[in-house]
């Protein structure tokens, strides 16, 4: 034991750069990181890179409608390498803009879920007692509903309150809020667990002996020490949030078809899939799968790299 603690001592000392080392030594992770980076870069540079601006109805021409992918079919037009939809929108450009939207919604809802989850988890773990019981029971109840159902519910309520036209304008905020609200539980539980471990450690007691307020102790001492697991959840949740948004959009309760995300594109393509125009739905689908896979691989790696037991 004595030898082991010394051993873990220097293992801990090496920990910071161990993350980088474990990254480098995993080709799968490097590939996932490169893929993620490329997708993200292309998505956010879409106003520059995309050959067309698919959200601008003025640039669309119905005569370009339903062209097959130029790279696969002689009927195609090289102005539209991945073909067009029934409106004559370029699929490649739509995917680029759609990915950007999916990413924005995914990231924003992760931020919402994280903020809410961390705050409630900290309060729950540090204060304990009735506050803890209340927050955790709410979490328990919410966990009995699938996240998608919670998101549907929230979206439904908002739709009931405001008009359809208004709704399209604020659709993105509604969906971010809905997804964020449905994912906070995992953060709260993880943070609460970590806080309950950390708050009994002697460095927190030392801060209490000095007489710091609980709020200061939570923010300055406890919070920085629970970020590791939160980061892992956030990465894995990013994939989940993107999928959830796609699912909602596919069901028609997500982003409107005037500003299609990947999920909306898949839905639009799905409507004409029976007539043999497969490319409208398959290319966005492949992009979505690639993006989520890459992000999840990164999340899995991060979880292992930050796990002290596997270090």
């Amino acid at each position, binding site marked *: 034991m004595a030898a082991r603690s010394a051993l873990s001592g220097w293992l801990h000392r090496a920990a910071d750069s161990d993350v980088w080392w474990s990254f480098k030594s995993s080709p799968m992770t490097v590939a996932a990181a490169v893929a993620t980076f490329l997708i993200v870069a292309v998505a956010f540079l879409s106003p520059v890179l995309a050959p067309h601006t698919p959200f601008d109805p003025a640039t669309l021409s119905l005569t370009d409608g339903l062209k097959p992918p130029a790279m696969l079919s002689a009927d195609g037009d090289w102005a539209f390498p991945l073909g067009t939809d029934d409106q004559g929108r370029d699929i490649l450009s739509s995917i680029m803009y759609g990915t950007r939207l999916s990413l924005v919604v995914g990231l924003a809802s992760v931020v919402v879920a994280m903020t809410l989850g961390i705050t409630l988890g900290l309060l729950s773990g540090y204060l304990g007692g009735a506050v803890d019981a209340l927050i955790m029971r709410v979490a328990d109840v919410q966990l009995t509903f699938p996240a998608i159902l919670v998101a549907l519910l929230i979206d439904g309520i908002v739709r009931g309150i405001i008009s359809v036209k208004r709704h399209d304008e604020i659709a993105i905020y509604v969906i971010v809020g809905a997804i964020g609200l449905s994912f906070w539980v995992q953060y709260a539980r993880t943070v609460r667990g970590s806080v309950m471990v950390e708050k009994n450690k*002697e*460095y927190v007691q030392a801060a209490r002996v000095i007489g710091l307020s609980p709020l200061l102790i939570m923010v300055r001492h406890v919070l920085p020490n629970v970020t590791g697991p939160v980061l892992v959840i956030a990465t894995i949740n990013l994939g989940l949030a993107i999928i959830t948004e796609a699912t909602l959009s596919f069901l028609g309760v997500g982003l409107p078809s005037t500003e299609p995300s990947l999920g909306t594109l898949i839905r639009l393509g799905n409507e004409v899939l029976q007539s043999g125009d497969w490319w409208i739905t398959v290319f966005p689908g492949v992009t979505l799968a690639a993006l989520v896979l890459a992000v999840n691989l990164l999340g899995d790696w991060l979880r292992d790299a930050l796990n002290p037991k596997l270090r």
Partner: protein
Amino acid sequence: MPDGSGTQFVRIAGLKRYFDVSAPWLVRMIERRPRQIVQAVDGIDIEIAKGETFSLVGESGCGKSTVARLVVGLYPPTAGTIEFDGNDMAGRHSRADMAALRRRMQMIFQDPYASLNPRWRVFDIIAEPIRAFGLSKDKADLQKRVEDLLRQVRLTPADGRKFPHEFSGGQRQRVSIARALASQPEFLVCDEPTSALDVSVQAQILNLMVDLQRRFGLTYLFISHNLAVVYHISTRVGVMYLGRLVEVAPTETLFTRPKHPYTRMLLDTIPDLDMTGRQRSPVAGEVPSPINPPSGCTFHPRCPFANDRCKAERPKALSIEGGTVACHAIEEGRLPVEERTYVANS
């Protein structure tokens, strides 16, 4: 017991702390289980004079660490009072007065790996009390204070830029001591400060603590299970068993003329490093659970001198040879005082 001189720096009277470790209410109702209360500290009186080192010894679960945490205010007491330099710590104090009192007492913890925030640089760890109590005039002053503290614990100012994980256990404990000294306290509560360290490092830390005590006139409440360490560092020693003080005496008296049967038993367990061939006489039995402690004198089930009175009546502290003993056998003169000698390990 109190000598009534009124010069006591820290005065603990009738201190009790019970912990409720019962199952949740619903489980108790369904399974018809009673409430379970741990009597971690069950009425102790201690007086510590300025500049002395008062040690509390005992086996794990005897409540000595709980006393330490009660004294620095990490737990509120269930009953009893803690007076620090004439101020009742539980009394009504303004925020500023309370901060002033807190500044004067600090704590050193057992585990050098858990007692420093792993995300903070050593400089910020040591600077925290200075900032919290607003003791520095400006940034340069803060810098100077932290560097002085680092030097006082035999580290270098450059160490301030490092993170705790870059240090060995002994060095971390030095950081911990520097943090405790940062608010210029007069009273330090040390909870097993060397028990997680290797012996050669333990010697360094004990020497440092002695040096600092002399330099700053510190008063120590020293918690330890290691009798040899306690013998080395203490002015007076209190022996705890199941939440109660069974004996208090000046160090030399306690080790050479132990009175309470439990003290004698503890002394018997000190390993014989002098190779005198003295056999450790293993004591029968183990410490009972503090949830349902034995009646009367809690030591009676393990005590070879126990009689019916010991089973029924809790012994009162009896003043004897500059200390106190809580034992019926001593009070009744059934148990003669025994002399012990030790051979120096040359």
